[in-house]
């Protein structure tokens, strides 16, 4: 039987800033028994959507829908971009716009990476040591996509790491896309409160499933000189490349 196909929508941040997250995600999707396809792709349109440029968001969404709609499964290694496609795309188009049905179809087939791996489990493999892991939920994964147990179960199942919870875990890290550039002072305050909570958790590694949070928190930890490693959950689960 041929392997089912899954499209990897890699996200701009992984594409540009952390290609290794894209490769790790591709490796995990393959390990789960899927043939990975990376269709030519751009941005999901969230920056425009969040800035009030709905028409711009529609333009970018149409391009993404056209690139993704032939796949039965679309995997996104980000709750934020995943939520944009799975939750917001249908709202971009009026009910009588033919793009509405196409947006709904793609939305219904789009899964965030840990959601995908919870449905299509990885084969068992020896658990690698991973130390004390603080897992940070992105707001979009937690509240928009309702993802809470999946990443923790994956970490417990595939690593020998111990998960420590971060105090006030529901609080936002302060990234917020353009927010961190438009309101740097508030963003920095939110980030430093989060890094303080991470440090207080006793973790030696911070793991999350969204690169926005990770670039924000990792960069803040680095500036603070905190000895805490930072990894995307795809990298953690896939192992060192």
């Amino acid at each position, binding site marked *: 039987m041929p392997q089912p196909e899954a499209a990897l929508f890699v996200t701009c941040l992984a594409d540009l800033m952390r290609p290794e*997250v894209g490769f790790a995600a591709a490796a995990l999707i393959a390990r789960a028994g899927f043939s990975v396809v990376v269709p030519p792709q751009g*941005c999901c*349109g969230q920056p*425009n959507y969040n800035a*009030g440029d709905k028409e711009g968001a529609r333009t*970018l969404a149409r391009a993404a829908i056209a690139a993704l709609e032939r796949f039965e499964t679309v995997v996104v290694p980000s709750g934020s971009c995943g939520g944009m496609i799975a939750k917001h795309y249908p709202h971009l188009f009026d009910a009588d716009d033919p793009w509405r049905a196409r947006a709904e179809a793609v939305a219904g087939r789009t899964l965030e990476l840990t959601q995908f791996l919870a449905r299509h489990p990885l084969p068992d493999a020896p658990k690698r040591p991973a130390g004390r892991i603080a897992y940070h939920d992105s707001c979009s994964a937690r509240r928009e996509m309702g993802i809470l147990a999946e990443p923790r179960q994956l970490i417990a199942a595939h690593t020998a790491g111990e998960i420590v919870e971060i105090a006030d875990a529901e609080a936002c890290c302060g990234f917020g*896309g353009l927010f961190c550039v438009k309101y*740097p002072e*508030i963003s920095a305050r939110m980030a430093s409160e989060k890094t303080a909570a991470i440090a207080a958790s006793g973790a030696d590694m911070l793991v999350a499933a969204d690169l926005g949070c990770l670039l924000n928190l990792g*960069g803040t930890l680095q500036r603070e000189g905190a000895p805490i490693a930072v990894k995307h959950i795809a990298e953690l689960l896939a192992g060192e490349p």
Partner: protein
Amino acid sequence: MTALDFKARAHAAMNDARLAPALKRMKSHFQMGRALAAQRFPDFEMLRDRAAAIRRRAISAMPDLLERFEANATAAGASVHWAADAAEACAIAARICRDNGVKRAIKSKSMATEEIHLNAHLKREGVEPVETDLGEYIIQLRGERPSHIIAPAIHLSKEDVAETFRAAHADLAPDRDISGRSELVREARIKLREAFLAADAGITGGNMLIAETGTILLVSNEGNIDLTATAPRVHIAVVGIDKIVESWDDAGIVLRVLARSATGQDMSSYVTCLTGAAAQDEDGPKQSHIILLDNGRSAMRASNKAEMLACIRCGACLNHCPIYAATGGHAYGGTYSGPMGAVLTPLFDGLSENADLPSASTFCGRCEAVCPVRIPLPMLLRHWREDAFAAGIPPRGERWGLGLWRWAGRAPWRYRLATRMASWGLRTLGWLQRGRIRRLPLAGGNFTASRDLTPPAGGTFQSRWRGER
């Protein structure tokens, strides 16, 4: 209204050494209170669903319910007035005071009267309104505006309050100890008790208007609303038309989510229900006036922000908002702060002056997650951003950047070219700054103001993926 913009006010607030610990205390106190109260209740999510439906039914039937309220309140002896805007509401209140020879008025905390700046208007008319909610009283003595919807003086320490009372209470003996919180509360109780018993009129807001009986329902913890609405000979209530609910059963459900969401109480300490005017043999004011305030609400109901009218002003969205927790309430520059303020202030005070408010959100969604009536606050903020973008309000650099991003994203080759150039640029910067970028150019400098950025370790994912295959 305020000379500084949001960013400047936020900057000032974030550098106020006393504010940060107060906000931190507020956050943990209110968040834990709500969480425990929700947990104690058998099925709080079901209660929220019902409260959400009740409020939306009220929005739907608003004109009919308001007419029913008016008919029933009038039949019970109240006078109902309709005010299209702040000026009209103030004028009606002032006229009632004039007609009844009111010189001294006491007030219970009311966001509607804050919204229309009633106190300033009454003062100009020769009426001295005294706030009686302890926090609001302190704020009034200091000439400030409330910084939190249910805890107006959250930004002050007990030393600040003692200093305020010393300056304002002329008869306070210099050797009397008011260094402790309970002494301060006692001092305010004594002072305000005199005011209650001497006042000609009491002015309140209203938490709900119950259509089926023409009743105004109010909640407080101090008991000051009960005294304000019953001790003087005239009562004036200023209530937004959005506060309408159909029945007592509806009000009961809203009450149950309100106190739990606001302070974590199962029930507010005082719930005051006022129906009409007092009969001859009954305690209380023989004259009762209800001013139904529109002030933009009917326009909001016709807009894509109509769901904001479901708000019951509990403050849970503030208490769970990371922006509010960082800046406090004064940064918002309006009557309302936090997520609710970010939706309401552009409506009351104009979008172009307040476009920062809906913009200053990460859309983290925690406000919506705790809103007792499930208002989609992030979506409403998004609608304001769309209005602002359509009106050309965001800075030119932001609009150009978004336009460029849209243009690049329309064709995959342009997007790939742009990301490859950016990747090359970042790697070069990384090389120049020895492995980690401490300073990005242009707006990116705001990111690196407080963070490092590790540059990418090679070309873009898409170019490498295709290169490797």
